[in-house]
């Protein structure tokens, strides 16, 4: 088997902002093997008692529906998933899946 370069793994970094917003910065390639990384960050965000959760998607190079599943799991319908600066790959996946109402860019 080929080695998978660690630098290409998807990562998720949780930051708490002063206004109580939890920001999860998602980076790299988010798929079946890295979706749990996002899920783990979401779990920590819930523990933080923050007032809202935003995903910074500016550094996502690739994302498939497994990655979306991780984001959607954080949602309490009908509230949307809030995205900050979605990258080209993320915007394209939103268009392809027709999830524009559920995945909304942060106001």
């Amino acid at each position, binding site marked *: 088997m080929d080695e998978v370069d660690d630098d290409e793994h998807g990562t998720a970094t949780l930051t708490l902002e002063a206004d109580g917003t939890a920001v999860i910065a998602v980076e790299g390639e988010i*798929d079946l*093997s890295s979706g749990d990384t996002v899920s783990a960050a979401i*779990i920590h965000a819930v523990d933080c008692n923050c007032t809202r959760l935003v995903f910074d998607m500016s550094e996502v190079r690739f994302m498939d529906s497994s990655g979306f599943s991780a984001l959607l799991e954080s949602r*309490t319908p009908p509230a949307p998933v809030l995205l900050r600066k979605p990258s080209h790959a993320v915007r394209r996946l939103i268009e392809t*899946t027709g999830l524009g109402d559920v995945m909304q860019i942060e106001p």
Partner: protein
Amino acid sequence: MTAMRRFANVTTSVRLARRFVAEQLTDFDDVTAESVILMVSELATNSIRHAASEFSITVTSTRQHLHVEVTDYGSGTPVARSALPSDTTGRGLQIIAELADDWGVHSKRSGTKTVWFTVRLTRAGETDTATSAAVTKPKQTRSNPRSSYDTMNLRYGNLAAFNDRRRSFVG
């Protein structure tokens, strides 16, 4: 041109599958390449997640078309469903149906299952001069995109325990 490669039943194979296909697409336009890579990622994910199987990918390109097959040892017939906005899963084949010009599934008595898709190509720097006469359509039956995907529900394993807490989250 045809290229084939096998992948192990591990989650990191999904990324390797994308790399493999990307290598076959170097002289195709970005939009086509992105679509094909996304579709391969979805099918490789299905092989591991639903079939729990090693899988192989075959990429065949002609001047006008790219044909991709993902074969695994899973039983059952995967068919696209229309996931609701509230559904967290079930969009893989929906994405194939949206992006591919044609796609389908066929199973063999030997126990293998192949999901295939075809896209018309516009190579970088060329206009699309595809003519249907040059193409032999695959003989497989096309899936019914309205059917359910009931034999292959996803599970969340160790994450299930956290669902209640997450549902209480005010997004």
